[in-house]
């Protein structure tokens, strides 16, 4: 044994390892969001973007973070779902309702320094058809020609009149890209918005920094950090201990009580586009039978279900239309809960002996509702086998791509998605009704009044056919420090619009 006080080889090695770690840690990712100054804001969210390229990567997380904040559109949606000017100060529609003329802002620049002109707008619109890989690109198929009349005037001619096209220009397909800034979309987004991506600490947070020289109203906060939490309890704790200022998406409504009677916080409850759908496979298996589908709808006690699995928060809608769309109508009466009727219809359908495969994704609302749906259906005489499929990978392949399921539960959060889900007979629901598709086509081309009438008829038709069951509409639940202002009450666009946020 040595007693001379000199460090041994062992302690030397430990010291060297620690020193290396300390030095190496200079570059290691930080989640230091504890120091929330007056000029910065930390928002807790759930789904982190896979990358920044929403032209080639699906998912709501990328536009949620970037749209309206980093990328801007010619027109944007406001809180009530109305179309408002953004990069276009005004626009007009020709008499034949095919040509839109947009007047653009003069002083907008991209974060790479390039000036925004009508040529960029033309480039962006045309690029959707040529370079995008998502199915949303078909929303630009209706465009016949795009012409940059002058640097501030853009003319878009459609192949046929389309009410839907201008609305879609408020979504990600309407985002304006720089002709010199699309080289590294996945990692370096370049937009005209008030914020630019400053730092992305993968697996943890994205920091947006206010841009100098932004053409519009300068946002209040110099930096906003979007911090991603997989666990709802961890997000609640982060707000309670001051690590974040806002819970942007409350995923555990049963724990709202922790904030409700506390003057330090405010709870915001609005509406969303997220219809939680009990998807039924209309193409094969027992759910191909209309009477069996109707039996399912009568068997579900929607109020009890929402109370049990989402703490009674949300709205019962009975169709694929949220209240912020102009053609909303309450269709919950079409199949009011009636267990006896469900039993009778199930008998008549001849499907009573068959086992239904309820294959749900591993998402909070789906796992919470899955067992309730199973139990309610079994009480009405159905046989149900519940499977959980890992989300996204396993669920996407099994249910969404291969339609290897009888029933599933998924929140369709895209805006105005009745057409994509039910208007395409190849979609995983396999609903094939030419009458329904004709109504949608007519609605798109008609006047605004005709559009509303036809969309209402379409929503009623798909609901009466029991192509699916609409469990409830997800609420937009946010909790924030009491002094935060300008939070979007309703989540009606694809964006989490940070531009109006402030501190009182």
């Amino acid at each position, binding site marked *: *044994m040595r007693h001379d006080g000199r460090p041994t080889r062992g302690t030397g090695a430990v010291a060297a*390892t*620690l020193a290396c*770690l*300390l030095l*190496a*840690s*200079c*570059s*290691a*990712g*930080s*989640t*230091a*969001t*504890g*120091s929330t100054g007056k000029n910065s804001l930390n928002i807790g969210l759930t789904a*982190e973007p*896979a*990358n920044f*390229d929403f032209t*080639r*990567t*699906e*998912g709501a997380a990328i536009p949620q973070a970037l749209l309206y904040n980093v990328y801007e559109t010619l027109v944007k949606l406001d809180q009530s779902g109305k179309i408002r000017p953004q990069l276009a100060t005004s626009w007009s529609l020709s008499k034949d309702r095919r040509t839109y003329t947009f007047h653009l802002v003069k002083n907008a620049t991209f974060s790479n320094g390039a000036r925004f002109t009508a040529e960029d707008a033309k480039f962006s619109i045309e690029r959707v058809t040529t370079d995008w*890989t*998502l*199915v*949303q690109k078909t929303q630009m198929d209706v465009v016949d020609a795009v012409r940059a009349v002058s640097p501030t005037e853009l003319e878009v001619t459609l192949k046929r009149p389309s009410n839907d096209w201008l609305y879609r220009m408020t979504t990600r397909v309407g985002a304006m890209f720089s002709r010199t800034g699309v080289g590294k979309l*996945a*990692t370096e987004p370049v937009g005209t918005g008030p914020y630019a991506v400053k730092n992305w*600490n*993968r*697996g*943890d947070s994205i920091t947006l920094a206010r841009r100098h020289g932004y053409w519009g109203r300068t946002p209040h906060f110099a930096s906003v950090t979007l911090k991603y*939490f*997989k*666990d709802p*309890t*961890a997000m609640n*704790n*982060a707000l*309670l*201990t001051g*690590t974040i200022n806002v819970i942007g998406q409350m995923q555990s409504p049963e724990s709202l009580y922790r904030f409700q009677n506390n003057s330090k916080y405010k709870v915001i409850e609005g509406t969303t586009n997220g219809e939680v759908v009990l998807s039924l496979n209309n193409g094969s298996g027992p759910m191909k039978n209309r009477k069996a589908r109707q039996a399912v709808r009568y068997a579900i006690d929607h109020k009890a279900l929402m109370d049990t699995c989402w703490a009674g928060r949300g709205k019962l809608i009975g169709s694929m239309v949220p209240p912020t769309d102009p053609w909303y109508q309450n269709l919950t009466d079409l199949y009011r809960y009636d267990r006896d009727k469900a039993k009778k219809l199930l008998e008549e359908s001849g499907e009573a002996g068959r086992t239904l495969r309820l294959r749900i994704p591993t998402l909070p609302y789906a796992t919470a509702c899955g067992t309730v749906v199973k139990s309610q259906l079994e009480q009405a005489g159905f046989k149900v086998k519940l499977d959980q499929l*890992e*989300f*996204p*990978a*396993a669920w*996407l*392949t*099994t249910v*969404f*791509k291969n339609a290897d399921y009888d029933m599933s539960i998924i929140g369709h959060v895209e805006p105005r998605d009745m057409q*994509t889900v039910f208007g395409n007979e190849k979609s995983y629901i396999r609903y094939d009704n030419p009458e329904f598709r004709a109504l949608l086509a007519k609605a798109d081309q008609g006047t605004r009044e005709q559009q509303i009438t036809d969309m209402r008829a379409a929503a009623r038709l798909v609901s009466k056919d029991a192509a699916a069951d609409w469990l409830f509409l997800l609420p937009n639940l946010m909790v924030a420090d009491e002094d935060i202002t300008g939070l979007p009450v309703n989540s009606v666009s694809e964006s989490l619009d940070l531009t109006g946020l402030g501190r009182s």
Partner: protein
Amino acid sequence: MIVRLVQRIGILLASLAVSSVLVFAFMAVLPGDPARVALGTSASDSAVAQLREQFGLDRPLVAQYLHWIHGLLTFDPGNSYISQAPIGPQLADRLQVTLWLVGTGMVIACVLALPMGTLMAVRHRKPSGLVLSALSQVGVAIPAFLAGILLITVFAVGLGWLPANGWTPPVQDPVLFLKQLLMPALSLGIVQAAVLTRYVRSAVLDVLREDYLRTARAKGLRPTRALLRHGLRNAAVPVVTVLALQLATLLVGSVVIERVFVIPGLGSLLLDSVANRDLIVVQDVVMIIAMAVLLVNFLVDLVYLLIDPRLRGGAS
């Protein structure tokens, strides 16, 4: 001695090669298509096929395996399927975070377990020894994530002394770093300490019954001195073995703890990458963990040689 060392290195390399084949094979049979996940619900089949080609997923498995190994050996693991960002820097960042967590957890475990285990052995018939023994049983029964949640509830949400979650590099803000490190490291450390204490106790008890210790005492050494001088070195061999196993458990345990404390370490990266079918990242992370475990076992073999001269003599 040298023959034994060469043998050990040979075993290490062979184990690494076998692990890499196993890791790759498991990833290959995992259901779910990375290209489909990247492009999502609305992508057309042709777009998915195009991306599969871009990822190299349409090539034969052997070619994919060799490409992966080549990337690892040249320290260029390529780009992530999903984020399209280079994987190397990301792995390095995450590994540092996890090493801090596991390292501190291990230090806490040792600092608690070695004196407590010895004390429990020395006083195994006295009430204080029994109380310590009961406490360690409770510690063994508590999973690390539960310890983490309890710590958060009491010290972060209840008392407000420590932040509930997050991570800051030590150079950026050393005080906040320590505050954020304390609870996750304790959650890992306390549970490991409980397990380790049991082994230390049993190893020291065995040593206490040995003849040489009785001889040492007969020569006039006090019990504590006899134990420190002649006993601990002998008790160390089984304890070091358990320590190595514990280190592997800590690495795996950190996956859960990182989720509970929202720490961007290797474990969080692994979970996210599995969910997104970012298989190339999953492969790399699992391989790093496998490498760490094998390397620790290798080092333990070396430590045996240092602790126990009999092993050295036998081989040479």
